[in-house]
């Protein structure tokens, strides 16, 4: 799929915003000012962006505990996200959700999800809504290689095939579920092959290559929009940080991580493919600088923001009770 210059710049902007956001959170977390747990997405940027660049605001995604990248790719506001992660009232969920529950239904983001394997069954619900309402919408769900072993994922895949739902199941195979390697935890030789056995088109792509992810998703989304039912895309990539911030990562060596960062960087791969064709290094460098500035602003605003008022403790459990 030949992308226009503005589409390439838009994709790069989102990928580099994710990187800047996550790298900065790694530093901010070390100050001790971020409550709870955060799980960083660096190294997987091309998956979230390659998928979401094929979606509209009226399409929905379901996400994971490692959801910041999905949120940014789907259009969530950086300031609202950062404030949420700091537990502040200006956050997208007014400080009641945190990193693992960032949601913005107005841009089709059904929520990060702290239950591993939680997204697919919810996302088939969004696909059912689109099909029933006949609005041409599609849904995508993100699940890790660890989450791919959950029974709910299998049930959602079978249901989607049976009901011919417009959904793309994206499996982000980053090699580890928490501290356990994919080769130990996934009994089948291929997660994509397991999905195919449910009776849907399924493919494996290099998840560090934006263009591979984009093209596979383009095909799957087009099929879903014209009533062709579900697809699965297994995208392989690498988790640059630990499972959670603070993870000592005793399951791999620092040299191995350094090697990944050097040779499996989705942003560098993107730059290598586009510079000298439609865009210049200078243009991309400027976008990098803008992304860092936007994250600086988001952190400054989040730090200055107020915590939620005490009375909000009891609000919004129900619409009415």
């Amino acid at each position: 799929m030949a992308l226009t210059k503005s589409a390439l710049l838009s994709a790069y902007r989102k990928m580099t915003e994710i990187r800047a956001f996550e790298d900065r959170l790694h530093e901010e977390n070390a100050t001790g000012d971020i409550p709870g747990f955060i799980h960083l997405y660096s190294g997987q940027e091309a998956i979230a962006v390659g998928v979401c660049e094929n979606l509209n605001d009226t399409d929905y995604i379901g996400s994971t505990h490692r959801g910041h990248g999905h949120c940014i790719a789907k259009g969530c506001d950086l300031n609202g996200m950062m404030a949420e992660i700091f537990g502040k009232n200006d956050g997208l969920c007014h400080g009641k959700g945190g990193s693992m529950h960032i949601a913005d239904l107005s841009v089709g983001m059904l929520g990060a999800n702290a239950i591993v394997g939680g997204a697919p069954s919810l996302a088939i619900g969004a696909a059912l809504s689109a099909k029933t309402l006949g609005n041409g919408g599609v849904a995508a769900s993100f699940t890790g290689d660890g989450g791919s072993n959950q029974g709910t994922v299998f049930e959602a895949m079978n249901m989607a095939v049976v009901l011919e739902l417009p959904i793309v199941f994206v499996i982000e195979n980053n090699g580890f579920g928490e501290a356990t390697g994919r080769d130990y935890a996934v009994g089948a030789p291929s997660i994509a092959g397991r999905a195919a056995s449910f009776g849907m088109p399924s493919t494996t792509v290099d998840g560090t290559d934006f263009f591979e992810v984009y093209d596979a998703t383009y095909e799957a989304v087009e099929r879903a929009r014209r009533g062709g039912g579900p697809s699965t895309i297994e995208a392989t990539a690498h988790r640059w940080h630990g499972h959670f911030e603070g993870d000592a990562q005793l399951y791999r060596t620092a040299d191995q991580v350094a090697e990944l960062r050097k040779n499996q960087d989705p942003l560098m791969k993107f730059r290598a493919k586009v510079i000298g064709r439609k865009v210049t290094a200078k243009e991309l460098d400027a976008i990098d600088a803008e992304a860092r500035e936007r994250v600086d602003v988001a952190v400054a605003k989040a730090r200055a923001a107020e915590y939620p008022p005490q009375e909000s403790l009891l609000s919004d459990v129900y619409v009415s009770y």
Partner: protein
Amino acid sequence: MTMSKTTYREAIKAALAQEMQRDATVVQIGEDLRGGQAGTNPELESGKVEAFGGVLGVTKGLWTEFGSDRVIDTPITESAIIGMAAGAALTGLRPVAELMFMDFFGVCYDALYNQAAKFRYMFGGKARTPLVVRGMIGAGFSAAAQHSQSPYNVFAAVPGLKVVAPSNAYDAKGLLIQSIRDDDPVVFCEHKTLYDVKGEVPDDPYTIPFGVANYTREGTDVTIIALSAMVNAANTAADKLAAEGVSVEVVDPRTVSPLDEEGILESVDSTGRVVIVDESAARCGFGHDVAALIATRAFGSLKAPIELVTPPHTPVPFSPVLEQAWLPDAARIEAAVRKVVSA
């Protein structure tokens, strides 16, 4: 308003049908709501045959009226049914998901407990989840340990869920219509021994608000608080005791969450003697919740210790002899009333 003598089953079906007629976003999702998909009976091809219409016939006729896009037969896959319904509720539909037997919540609880119930709070008030989960509860059919439980106490412990357990046809229709129109997730518990019980039910749609108890008997000596099928047992006991000069008030809260605390306390304040009948559990049940409410808010009104009538702390047994011994009945309720009266 025109009334008809209607069974609890027909009242539930009428609520579903009338809401589907009124609102095109209401869909039914579940196993064998029609039944017969990919069956070998050639007559299925004609599109006229509903092989099941729900295992106990509650949804019979809905598929014929509304078709496969709105009465959605699914595989046996509760986790995906409730998860899909929760996701659909977030994104523009008003799904009514049927769990068949509420006992099956064990294989799909995450979608209800960690997802649907928490969306609104976790997302800072930005989500609405107009989801209804229907299912059968209750012992009495020798359906044994995995098809006879009444876990409304488990659902009611979860902030974000509303829990309804109607005791008669009139309440079933009005509360189900309210459940479908409600913007929060509702667990709607249908007692399987009540399906054939008839009552006077308005033909037109109507709603009954949540959190408003119904006094099925008025009295001055003792208050019985009972829910779902236990209301009938309580009424039977009350009528027998009335003949002996013991005046019993029966309070049916109708919804476990929200709970009509004031409606219960008002009756307790007037009688001072309390029997609570609960099929859910011998420990940490609905009855214990109500007992705690009364002990903390109406202790000064009590003239006798509160009596609880519950099953024993065992799974529901299969053999009819054991099941009858397990299930609270009018005789045990009567004995409990005599005890609080003589205390």
